[in-house]
């Protein structure tokens, strides 16, 4: 199945794009998606512990199972204000 990754803040640099699609096996979780991204993007892998993922208005945890077509927003450490 396919999901979309939306990269915010510095995660745009780590992944080299603001938005792209990611192919995952059916039944994959948020953690699986992060694992797949970390395997391709070493800068993201190094910062994985500080990275959150949002779907819509919610921060989701690694166990969340993904729907096909889901949009995952990568939320690196924030610096507003």
């Amino acid at each position, binding site marked *: 199945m396919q999901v979309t990754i939306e990269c*915010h803040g510095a995660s745009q640099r780590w992944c080299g794009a603001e938005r792209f699609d990611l192919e995952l096996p059916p039944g994959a979780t948020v953690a699986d998606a992060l694992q797949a991204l970390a395997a391709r993007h070493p800068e993201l892998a190094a910062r994985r512990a500080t990275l959150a993922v949002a779907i*819509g208005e919610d921060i989701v945890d690694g166990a969340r199972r993904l729907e096909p077509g889901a949009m995952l*927003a990568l939320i*690196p450490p924030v610096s507003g*204000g």
Partner: protein
Amino acid sequence: MTPSRLRQGALNPAEFLGSTPPDCGGTAAFVGTVRNEHDGRAVTGIRYHAYAPLAERRLEQVEQEAQRRFGVRVRVAHAFGELVVGDASVVVVAQAGHRAEAFDACRWAIDTIKQSVPIWKEERYAGGEARFLEGTPIREVGQA
């Protein structure tokens, strides 16, 4: 309809100081503006990026939680997009019966915005370079 708390371009702080309710004796406000310097480097501007769906919600939660904790009416707003030196990026206004609660709620709200709202600073430097600042891992609004 309440105007959006997340807005494109520099904020106008005066907009948030318009009128005070009759039971308000003290208003504390904070306005964050773009500085011309950071860590010894000359800054020309900051591009603020936001993840809008969650940022809007979190800004609203900051107002609600401030009201719950301090019994104070709080309004917050944050800019996104390109800002230049001197532009206002964030405004917090806390209206209370007395000044102590107003200050406490205002300070809590700006501290919480910086930790709980998915917004990122990309600083632009005099030489033309740009860089995302290191931040802090996002937290829930109520989280200490």
